[in-house]
């Protein structure tokens, strides 16, 4: 059994390494040649051979002119991504030094295009290592496989499906834990009527809201915003979308979310959401409404805006809901809690943010962003949720009895964004020095998030240094993700913790990483720590 699994992992790695040259032989060679070994010769570029102007008849141009023959042929096989090999290790207070050799795949992607407007793709990331243990869990770590099929029969008609599989995901320190397993990310059909009304039918990502860290108007997304990666894609619902552009840049969009069945076979309500986007000067204004027939999610009106005032970009979202979606909990005695709801009363949520960006032509740049959030659906004092029993009471009220530990990372609207008052911000300063092979770029940045309702904070200072074009000599990054707060709080679910990390890529070939999650007691004294490190050499670097 062990032998078989080791064999499977070995075969996977060998396939990746040795099929690649063969695959590339079939791949479409779209790269042109551009010789940069010698300076450009102006007298040659604009010499006797140069024909500066080619006159094209206007009538011909109206039909389309192919100045250079398009040599693209089908089918196309394409392999992209990076493969590196090396060793990794870890040591902690409770374990001895462990070292392992490994092969790391980074977005290794295989695309098959049998004909124009038809693409199939499979992308894989993960670390594969030999194992003496009895299970595949040691042979593959942080495995993430995604695939999609994109088939268009016309400019308007399209079928798209994407799915992913994650396995043995290591603790990234994120607030929202990634659950292993298979997931259907999107599955939809596009169609249209007369270039006027456009439809998307099926499971789809829907990203409403203009905020960066907080998006109270994003009522259709099924997953919360990850504060450490606010731009990451999030799961959307199965919905029927109708989009009708009008005027120059305006849109009216209607989503209808059909009922779904829960594990007991009960049908949920039907949801409908309408949004109208209007562009006024340099501002985009959006007015939206949402309702669900079973009132599990309360009806609401939303107003969003984004634009610029002078050198500052500003954005905001305002939500007026009739009742709260949340099941609340309060303490009734020692260790006992009761749940309650807030209904039939207007509840307001509002966020506003601003961004400022400045860069001069000599490479000095400054970026600032700040966003505040008032969450009327949150607790003014959310410390009640520090207790596992409180979380469990809420969870059981919504989903029924459970024996598992309920954490704030659980995908539950009752536990997400529990606070009422939030503030987030980021700042960065970058600069460039020198030129040629000795060009140096530096960037010093930090983001910070505060939940004033439970006192938790999260910040990450980061310093990066690159030497050579794009870090061709050295690409160094130092950071320290820091969570401060009591265990069970939103931004520090495991209590006070600092994770210093270093990553250095030398000559674009060798990458060294070091990370040391350090857990601190409530008085910030040392509690425990572990150390992880790796050293990888790039074997393959394929154009991405």
């Amino acid at each position: 059994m062990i032998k078989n699994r080791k064999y499977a992992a070995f075969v996977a790695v060998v396939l990746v390494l040795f099929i690649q040259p063969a695959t590339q032989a079939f791949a479409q060679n779209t790269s042109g040649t551009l010789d940069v070994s010698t300076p450009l010769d102006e007298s040659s570029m604009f010499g006797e051979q140069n024909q500066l102007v080619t006159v094209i008849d206007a009538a011909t141009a109206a039909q389309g002119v192919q100045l250079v023959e398009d040599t693209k042929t089908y089918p196309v096989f394409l392999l992209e991504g990076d493969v590196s090999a090396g060793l990794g290790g870890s040591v902690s207070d409770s374990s001895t030094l462990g070292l392992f050799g490994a092969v790391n795949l980074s977005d290794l992607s295989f695309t098959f295009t049998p004909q124009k407007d038809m693409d199939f793709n499979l992308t894989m990331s993960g670390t594969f290592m030999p194992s003496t243990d009895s299970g595949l869990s040691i042979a593959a770590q942080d495995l993430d496989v995604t695939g999609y099929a994109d088939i268009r029969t016309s400019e308007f008609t399209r079928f798209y499906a994407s799915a992913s599989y994650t396995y043995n995901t290591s603790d990234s320190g994120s607030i929202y834990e990634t659950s292993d397993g298979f997931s259907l990310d999107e599955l939809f059909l596009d169609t249209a009527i007369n270039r006027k009304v456009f439809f998307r039918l099926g499971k789809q990502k829907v990203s409403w809201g203009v905020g960066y860290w907080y998006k109270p108007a994003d009522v259709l997304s099924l997953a919360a915003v990850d504060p450490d990666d606010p731009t990451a894609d999030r799961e959307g619902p199965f919905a029927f979308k109708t989009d009708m552009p009008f005027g120059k840049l305006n849109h009216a969009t209607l989503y209808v979310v059909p009922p779904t069945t829960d594990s007991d076979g009960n049908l949920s309500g039907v949801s409908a959401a309408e949004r109208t986007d209007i562009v006024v000067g340099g501002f985009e204004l959006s007015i939206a409404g949402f309702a669900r027939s079973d009132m599990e999610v309360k009806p609401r009106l939303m107003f969003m805006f984004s634009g610029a005032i002078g050198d500052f970009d500003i954005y905001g979202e305002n939500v007026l809901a009739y009742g709260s979606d949340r099941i609340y909990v309060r303490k009734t005695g020692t260790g006992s809690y009761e749940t309650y709801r807030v209904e039939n009363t207007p509840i307001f949520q509002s966020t506003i943010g601003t961004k400022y960006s400045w860069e001069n032509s000599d490479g000095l740049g400054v970026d600032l962003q700040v966003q505040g959030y008032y969450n009327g659906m949150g607790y003014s004092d959310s410390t009640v949720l520090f207790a596992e029993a409180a979380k469990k009471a809420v969870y059981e009220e919504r989903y029924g009895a459970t024996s598992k530990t309920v954490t704030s990372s659980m995908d539950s609207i009752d536990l997400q964004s529990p606070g009422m008052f939030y503030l987030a911000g980021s700042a960065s300063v970058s600069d460039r020095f020198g030129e040629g092979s000795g060009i140096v770029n530096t960037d010093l940045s930090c983001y910070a998030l505060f939940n004033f309702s439970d006192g938790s904070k999260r910040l990450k200072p980061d310093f990066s240094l690159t030497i050579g074009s794009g870090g061709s000599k050295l690409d160094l990054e130092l950071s320290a993700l820091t969570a401060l707060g009591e265990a069970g709080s939103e931004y520090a679910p495991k209590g006070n913790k600092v994770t210093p990390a270093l990553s250095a890529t030398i000559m674009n070939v060798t990458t060294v990483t070091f990370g040391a999650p350090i857990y601190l007691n409530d008085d910030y004294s040392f509690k425990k720590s572990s150390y992880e490190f790796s050293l990888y050499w790039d074997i393959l670097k394929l154009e991405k």
Partner: protein
Amino acid sequence: MKTKMVQLKKGTSLLILLLLALFCAKAQDGGPPPGGGMPPPGMSDEELTKPVSTDVKTYTAKDFLSLVRQTDLRSSFYNSDMTATITMVSVSPERGTMTRKETIYRRDKDDAFLMLTLEPESKKGQGMLRVDNNMWRYDPTSRKFTHTTLKDQYENSTARNSDFRRSQRAWDYSVTSVADGKLGKYNVWVAELKANNDEVPFPYIKMWIDKEHTVVLKVEEYSLSKKLLRTSYYTNYAQIGTSYVPTVQIFQDGLIPEKRTQMTYTNISTKAVPDDVFTKNYLERMSQ
């Protein structure tokens, strides 16, 4: 009493939203696009079209600005839409040779521009829409639109977002000196210009303009400290009616000699583009 207060609050909120919607609808048209069909600052339409002397000694800065404006107009399509496929080959020490293919749609009379990435596969479906002062970038992975700025460098190459839109140098710059010159076999005007606003990525530029066709052959772009950041070459043009498309453009990085990008235009068309192309919906629909 409490119920009445709630109803009052609801009614007031609705009224505010409705008033806002009415105001938005009224304000729909916005102002004219900067640099649209208008002459540069300090110039009238009459001055823009007056005959240009061939003797550089008689040239004034305003004369040359008129010439720059003519190059802007010649590179624009005010009487039709323009569509093209652009192949970009970029070379840099850290990434080797990279190839990208984009489709662009331009409606210069509305200052509307849309770009979609066709290749490489990993970037396919990424796009950008700009109409007047509104610019969105679309990420097909998160299905999210974000605002961006024309100052952005385009995907770590020596090209910039502003290289794809219609030219408006006469609007953004003032002429500080003019001279005669020669570039290869071509007789050229050589002028130094200084930016009159901080929206442009290069505060100082130097232009070489072909005398015969009044098209730009070369531009050197400098930083605030007068360091050469980039040299652009326009070695071939396609003339369609009164408009010129630079079909081959080469961008040489000024700080890193081994960093260079070549853009080649193919499949040029002036066929009318449907209105729905210049919408966010189109970007979303055509993305991966």
